């Protein structure tokens, strides 16, 4: 296409790009058929429908609190859930829902000591299987690790998978922002019953301001101009990124204070329901996945978990990619998911 042709195409391309950006909300995400099995407050446990379940041990997916778990099932053809179902796993999802002001008393102990064990109870009841693989991503990974540390030796989790999980936050950019005395988390948590998801997302985007606020949108326009835009891929990811549930204020206060101000998880100083969370008490088959370009949970902040756990079976996958791109990017399907499924399959027999 020469310069004149490009110039003539510009108005059409501008309209097309505007259409892509303006119809993001119409994109379909989380389309794999599933059934709600159990609910409590805003939390829902889903089981994905499958025609062929080869592996005995079901897989329970747990995501973070600041985005929706649809990223596990982004779009047909690029869905981790769909991939696991295709590999013969029985896949379950613990969805935290969309908390609101009435959930201000929901703290981390609810997620770790109530919701996760109750969901595991329901999975075991429905499947009849005594054990489960627990897969946590980001904050969901940290909460899965906390649960793993508190679980009794006879507990139901056989395999624990931590995806881009913050463990030691001492070098994280977040710590520079919210870990100092300048950031008064109590001021915010006392005034907001639920911290708006948009506010959390805005701060997340400030970590790479030009890339997140400008380059992503500029690339859409450029790709439309070049005639190589992938509308569905952009819209599904953009819709997911913009869907930010509020963070219950008690959980927010605890997360910021314990993880970023006091870095308690790696120091073994978090106490939930009177019990100390010690990573050294994790003795499950453990898989830790880190992303080389992760700026939210940098690799260096995840690796300390490997030194602390007492598991006999520990595996670490380090892959290129970012915090989300690692598992949901275009390369994940070929470069990450097969290894993850293979690791699970080897440990999911009766």
């Amino acid at each position: 296409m020469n310069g004149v042709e490009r110039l003539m195409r510009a108005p059409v391309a501008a309209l097309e790009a505007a259409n892509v950006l303006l119809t993001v909300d119409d994109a379909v995400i989380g389309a794999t058929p599933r059934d709600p099995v159990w609910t409590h407050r805003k939390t829902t446990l889903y089981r994905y429908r499958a025609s062929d379940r080869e592996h005995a041990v079901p897989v329970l997916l747990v995501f973070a609190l600041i985005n929706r778990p649809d990223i596990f099932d982004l779009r047909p053809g690029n869905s981790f859930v769909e991939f696991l179902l295709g590999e013969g796993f029985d896949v379950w999802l613990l969805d935290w829902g969309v908390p609101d002001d009435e959930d201000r008393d929901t703290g981390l102990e609810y997620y770790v000591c109530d919701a996760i064990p109750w969901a595991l109870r329901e999975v075991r009841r429905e499947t009849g299987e005594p054990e489960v693989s627990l897969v946590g991503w980001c904050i969901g990974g940290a909460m899965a690790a906390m649960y793993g540390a508190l679980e009794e030796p006879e507990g139901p989790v056989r395999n624990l998978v931590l995806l881009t999980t913050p463990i030691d936050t001492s070098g994280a950019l977040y710590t520079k922002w919210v870990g100092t005395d300048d950031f008064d988390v109590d001021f915010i948590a006392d005034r907001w019953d639920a911290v708006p998801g948009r506010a959390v997302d805005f701060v997340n985007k400030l970590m790479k301001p030009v890339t997140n606020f400008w380059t992503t949108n500029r690339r859409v326009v450029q790709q439309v101009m070049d005639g190589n835009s992938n509308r569905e891929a952009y819209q599904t990811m953009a819709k997911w990124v913009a869907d930010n549930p509020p963070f219950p204020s008690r959980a927010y206060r605890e997360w910021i204070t314990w993880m970023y101000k006091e870095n308690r998880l790696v120091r073994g100083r978090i106490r939930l329901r009177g019990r100390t969370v010690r990573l050294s008490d994790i003795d499950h088959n453990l898989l830790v996945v880190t992303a080389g370009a992760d700026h939210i949970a940098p690799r260096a902040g995840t690796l300390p978990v490997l030194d602390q756990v007492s598991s006999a079976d520990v595996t670490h996958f380090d892959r290129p990619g970012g915090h989300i791109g690692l598992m949901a990017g275009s390369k994940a399907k070929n470069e990450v998911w097969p290894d993850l499924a293979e690791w699970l399959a080897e440990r999911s027999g009766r």
Partner: protein
Amino acid sequence: MPDPERAETPEQQVRRLYEEAEKETAEAMERLVNQPSFGRVLALMAENTVALAKVGADLGDLVLRNLRIAGRADVVKLSRQLNRTEDKLELVLQQVEALRRDSGSLPSATNGSSKPRAAQS
């Protein structure tokens, strides 16, 4: 051997230069947000935003309350009562399960009888 720069069309040159400038700006901004001073500014901005939002929300609620219309605070109060009811139902479920376990009518998969992990890797 031809110079690759000379082989570029003017449009390609403009695009390359723009992308270089954008990349450098992005890196500069990332260095900026890494400064402790940026954290202080962010903290102040957050506090001011929260305080303003709180004033606005309280004012809105006060207006609704004086008009005898249910405001957000009333909805939240009702929702919290529903939450408490749901908590109690969950506790009842647990009690029923414990009783079923005691009476031996609950399948073994749900009564915590899994094997020790060490034997299963």
